[in-house]
């Protein structure tokens, strides 16, 4: 297939955001994924989150690896630079890009094959390194482009479309992200836009490594009876621990809630997260308790979703490397080259 241009016509009454953009300005090319693919819902959620946050589209860099999920950056944010890199290696490419220019917003899109199988090492180390980014895994538990093989997140006992039962233990990327030091960890479901959009918004506002594991059913190969990543299964087993709204720092906070039911968390960039608790005992700031909770609910057959952990004052790679504020790609000769006089001194020390 070749590139499909998308008509730029839109309804005259389409709303504008604070920058004067319409939602259409955040869209990309027409998707070539299967009709009903969960990934398209995630693309739509990204479009909506960026529109609602009033982000200049060109100040976002979108990077991906290889696979169905990694194709999606073509289908959103057409005015942003995108990079479809090699299989499983998006995290390193994104890390390098982030080092070169700390001023852009980095959106890494990957899949369960890309991040949990071939790329699990890079996923793990990017989390450890606290790269300031939003890392979304569009998790369908299956290799779609190569026609339905199990992936590393397929649940033990899950049945493939061809009737094969998976005998391997699944990799829980949320559990790994928590253990490896990600400062924002969430899980969501492509079919739950009300939950997903604010999670993406909060992750973008988060100034550290933000990880979202988004279960995204594959309509072609993993949406059948016996699958644990189908629309029906996820809807039946989804247990949200909280409901989230993101409020920009500049907005006045006026709504009152009964005490104890709502928690306001201010992120480093000034934005507020308004969390309505759905599970009484869940503490979004306790990394160890979060891991414990995940494991217990998983054992009980539930898929826990929502904002699972957040550190409102995260550190990031640039902070640890103590880099200057200016983007590296804008540093000129005067800033980078020590010059002839310094070299003469170096020569003198080598005789």
């Amino acid at each position, binding site marked *: 297939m070749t590139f499909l241009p998308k008509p730029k016509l839109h309804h005259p009454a389409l709303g504008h955001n604070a920058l004067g953009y319409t939602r259409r300005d955040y869209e990309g090319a027409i998707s070539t994924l299967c009709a009903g693919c969960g990934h398209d819902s995630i693309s739509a959620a990204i479009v909506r989150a960026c529109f609602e946050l009033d982000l200049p589209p060109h100040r976002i860099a979108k990077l991906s690896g290889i696979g169905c999920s990694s194709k999606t950056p073509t289908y959103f944010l057409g005015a942003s630079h*995108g990079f479809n890199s090699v299989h499983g290696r998006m995290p390193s490419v994104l890390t*390098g890009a982030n080092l070169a220019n700390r001023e852009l917003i980095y959106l890494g899109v990957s899949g369960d094959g890309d991040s949990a199988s071939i790329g699990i090492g890079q996923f793990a180390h990017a989390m450890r390194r606290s790269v300031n980014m939003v890392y979304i895994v569009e998790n369908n538990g299956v290799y779609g482009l190569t026609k339905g093989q199990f992936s590393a997140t397929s649940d033990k006992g899950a049945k493939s479309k061809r009737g094969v039962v998976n005998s391997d233990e699944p990799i829980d990327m949320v559990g790994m992200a928590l253990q490896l030091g990600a400062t924002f960890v969430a899980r969501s479901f492509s079919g739950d836009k009300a939950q997903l959009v604010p999670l993406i918004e909060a992750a973008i506002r988060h100034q550290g490594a933000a990880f979202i594991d988004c279960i995204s059913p594959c309509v072609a190969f993993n949406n059948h009876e016996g699958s644990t990543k189908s629309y029906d299964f996820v809807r039946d087993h989804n247990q949200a621990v909280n409901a989230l709204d993101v409020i920009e720092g500049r907005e006045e906070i006026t709504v009152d809630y009964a005490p104890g039911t709502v928690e306001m968390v201010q992120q480093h960039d000034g934005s507020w997260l308004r969390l309505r608790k759905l599970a009484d005992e869940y503490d979004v700031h306790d990394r160890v308790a979060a891991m414990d909770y995940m494991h217990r609910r998983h054992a009980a057959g539930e898929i826990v979703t929502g904002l699972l952990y957040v550190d409102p004052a995260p550190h990031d790679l640039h902070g640890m490397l103590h880099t200057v504020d200016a983007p590296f790609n804008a540093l000129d000769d005067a800033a980078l080259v020590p010059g*002839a006089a310094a070299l003469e001194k170096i020569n003198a020390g080598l005789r």
Partner: protein
Amino acid sequence: MSQSLTEVRGLQRINDFVVKFANVNGSGSASANTMFGKSILRMGVPVAPRNIFPSNIQGLPTWYEVRVSEAGHLGARGGVDLMVAMNPQTWDQDIRSIEPGGYLFYDSTKPMPASKFRDDIVVLGMPLTELCNAAYSDPRQRQLFKNIIYIGALSALLEIEPAVIETLLGEQYRGKDKLIAPNLEAFHMGRDYALKHLDCPIGLKVRRADQVGDRISIDGNAAAALGAVYGGASVAAWYPITPSSSLAEAFARYCQRYRVDKATGRNKFAIVQAEDELASIGMVIGAGWNGARAFTATSGPGISLMQEFFGLAYFAEIPAVIFDVQRAGPSTGMPTRTQQCDVLACAYASHGDTKHVLLFPEDPHECFTMGAQAFDLADRLQTPVFVLLDLDIGMNERLCAPFTWDDSKRMDRGKVMTAAELEAGKDFGRYLDVDGDGIPYRTYPGTHPTRGAFFTRGTSKDRYARYTEEGPAYQDNMERLLRKHDTAKSLLPRPLAHPASAPTRLGAIYYGSTSPAMDEAAGLLAEEGLPIDCLRVRGFPFHHDVAEFIAAHDQVFVVEQNRDGQLRSLLINELEVAPSRLARIVHYDGSPITARFIAGAIAKAHTQSRKVAP
């Protein structure tokens, strides 16, 4: 005690000999041995030191070889004139390596049977362990000062000026002043013992000369790292691997000194020790895509691991600089031995049709200049550029011309379309050959709100970066990449010719660390009546001069340090030269190539060819 089993008249040589130290790895000998070489350099006599070391932290044998050459020959010579045998493990092979008439200096504390010596060498025994045990009680001190004591003895035997070593000791322990006095004491203990008990001086002597000039002494890895600083690199991502690790570490050192913003104390550099070589090159490519200058340093196994990413950077056209400090392969090979064995792996790195830009520095001076230039080339050509060092130049201090820099020079960032140009409506096609040189324009991410964004991918695309699997569009792009590769020829350093002093039909092509041995070999061959024209190749794709050189000679030898003659293969493949026109002269046992080997091999090949075709 001076012992000579039979009366042997030792070699008589001034400023032209090889000293080799046999030590145990981890015994602290390196700094003493380095000081020995430096003291001769300070007397104005060129030296070429080489570390020959195992892949080990402690316990295995290690050697340090110092070639003293007033004539300025800096390649390995082969053979040993004075062996300082401090390692019983390697005694037999060390004794064997001494030239007839050469000297053996050893620790005579424990008597050795006569059968352990040779009757055609001069034996100099000194009870080093006994002296140390008497002078020191701490075992570590006994070990460390033993090294300084033998340097003291050697200064007497070879007539090295003691004041020079005293100065060097002062420089070495500057800031740790309380270490100076005991080191001086140990130095004089050894020197005094030798003067009193051994026949000083021996036939090998150092005489003050004036042959060093303003040259500097540095290892190629540090020089390349400094080149990266001057080349404007701000991102380095690497994974430790011998023999390249010291390049990344030197970059960190230089950055701490020259790249910390004075006003804020913050860094104008980012160095990431990645989880593996794949992540290293991924970060470099991500940074290059986003407009920062970035590099990685690695060796053969890393080059193998990075292959997929090299293909991406080639096809998506992203600048990247790779310093490959080559070591003996294949596989883990000999990690601490030198070779030039990654030439083909780099030239055609990754699957599919690829051709990459290579640079071949001959010494630390060129490691610096090419190290800096590589970043301009990578930006100009929007492609990976490989700087091929090897262990011999990377990890050994080498005497070379001082570094120079032109302050009026500016980084060449290549064809980058600006926001103003986009705003003015300039047509932007990421893979559009606007100028006919095969090099398209690129934009940095985030440049303009509505124009100039494109999708970077490893899949095929048309001139406007749109995904396509249409055959003609794919071929159009692949042909443009070839044009771009052709453009590189005019940008790379030209080959350097070293014509023979007499007309000849013989030619030699060589590159990289083979340089000093080849220069010396050309002299030896001329003495034997075989004058030879030499051409040092400094980059790939090959300049037109290379084909002309081959055409102008009846017999051309390609001299290199790998089994298969990789540069020769590349010449045959790229210049479509008949293989019979290029004779393979290869040295690949892991030791640096020598002039003796080259001259011998060329003379033999020449004689044989005459027999075959009279």
